């Protein structure tokens, strides 16, 4: 395979002195869906945060498109085309939907921002009627849609989705995972997907990482992890 779009090397990170991620390495290649699974509290969210620079990094490196970005501040990474949908607190609840979208297109020029917002409102028409409502008045599902819209609106090169289907009705969740494939196939976006629903995610993913207690327990083709009876049963509740 060619050069990875994102390469994580021997990453050790955590919160202050509390280490959560231990010696994690993996590569993500252009145009693939990279699935990260693992039990609750295994450090999946912390890993994504660390990639974005929102935690304390003790050692290791992260490079993006061949450039070392380990020490870059988060807002610079965002401007380089990395997007991230946090698992919690992923919208500004005190701002209106309109203002939230304005913030999501913060780095774009005015006219471009307007077009992009129009674009995502077509994908999530529910939001259009709520533009002047504060995000805290949205339902859990609507809020998640807003968060997704905010992640996609900048047309990033790579997006990291931390449990995007949380709070969504099963039908909507399935639909969303389908849309993730569309992102890759039609828009050429590379996707890192953290998902509770391991089976669905691994079925659509190209390659996968299994995290257990902050360490890598498996890295390889998503299918193989799905078929690995031992790992699947022990950590993912797959039969």
């Amino acid at each position: 395979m060619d050069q990875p779009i994102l390469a994580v090397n021997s990453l050790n990170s955590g919160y202050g002195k509390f280490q959560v991620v231990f010696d994690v390495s993996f590569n993500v290649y252009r145009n693939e869906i990279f699935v990260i699974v693992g039990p609750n509290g295994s450090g999946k969210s912390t890993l994504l945060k660390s990639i974005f620079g929102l935690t304390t990094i003790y050692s290791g490196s992260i490079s993006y498109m061949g450039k070392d970005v380990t020490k870059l501040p988060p807002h610079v990474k965002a401007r380089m085309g990395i997007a991230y949908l946090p698992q919690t607190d992923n919208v500004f609840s005190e701002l209106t939907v309109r203002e939230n979208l304005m913030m999501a297109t913060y780095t774009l020029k005015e006219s471009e921002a307007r077009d992009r917002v129009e674009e995502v409102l077509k994908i999530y028409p529910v939001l259009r009627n709520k533009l002047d409502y504060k995000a805290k008045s949205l339902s859990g599902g609507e809020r998640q849609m807003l968060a997704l819209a905010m992640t996609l609106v900048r047309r990033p090169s790579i997006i990291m989705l931390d449990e995007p289907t949380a709070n969504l009705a099963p039908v909507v969740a399935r639909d969303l995972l389908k849309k993730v494939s569309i992102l890759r196939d039609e828009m050429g976006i590379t996707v890192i997907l953290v998902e509770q629903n391991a089976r669905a995610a691994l079925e659509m993913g190209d390659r996968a990482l299994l995290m257990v207690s902050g360490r890598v327990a498996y890295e390889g083709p998503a299918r193989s992890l799905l078929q690995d009876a031992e790992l699947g049963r022990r950590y993912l509740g797959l039969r």
Partner: protein
Amino acid sequence: MVLPSPEFLVYSIAYGSVLALLCIGLTLTYMVTKVPNFAHATLAITGATVTLFLLDRIYYSLHPVRCHGCVVQYATLYLLAPILAFIIVGLVALAEYLLVLRPLARRGMGIIGLMIATLAFDMILYNVLSLTLYIVPAKNLSRLMDAPLKGFDVGVTLAGVNTSFSRLLLPLVAITLAVALHMFLTRTKFGVSLRASIENPDLARVLGINVDLAYMVSWFLAGGLAGASGALWAFMIESYKPETAYFIIVSIFAGSILGGLGSVYGALVGGFLIGLAETVGLVITQNLLQLLLNLLQQLLNMLGLTVTLTVTVTLTQYQRFFSLIIVIVVLLVAPQGLAGINFRGLLARGGLK
């Protein structure tokens, strides 16, 4: 009479306006850095110092008492001083954030440590001011310290009320700056990003917002507001001294706590109300007390007892004490301040929907 004179009312409103602007600034920095800035009053006095220097160096001889027909020229002081003070004090506040608070916060210092750091900065700033005033000789004033700044205001009689230029100007300045701040926070992309950065800094960073820059601008604005209001407040000070700051800091905290420390609008209202309470409120209370005593005396006289009752305390000496009582009551009754009170709920319960 129970009610104070119209002159005093105008004074109260001007004082309330100063406090409102100071509370907005304190609340803004509190929202950004989560630490009460004990140096905020000294920032205001730094603004007053700008007026002092302008007066001594440029405007002394232009004062209407010394120069007839210079009123218009002299009036530019009321514009120049706040603008200059806004910039200078904004930069001082920015320095406080960049040189003291941000490095300490990044090293993981807790709120108590940071609070003490603002106190330390306050002392440094106070000493720098005192030293400057001591070293720099006065040009026109007899001395820079203890200068009777109040005397440099221009008297105005409006609708039979004897007042002054600064007192009429202050409410206008407060309203203008508050509206400008509101427009900035709600109508501009950068202003909205400031609110976003306060609510959820990590999410703001993830979206490409430079949160650090937003925080720096907040500190600059907070200092600027303190400087501008301090520059005009100078005309209300009997005699200028850097330690005047230590009296008003209590009122600034009172107004900010009343406002809930979480919204600039709450701070605006809280500061203004504390300003009124400390002035008009106090006088009314004093007068009511006197009235009550008079009534009591008459009653006793009617009963055949001849006694003379007089109030010997002047409440106005207990101005700050009054605002401290208000703070305690607010914290007991509505811990979230004015902004936390569910007014709609209260109205609905009262059937007034």
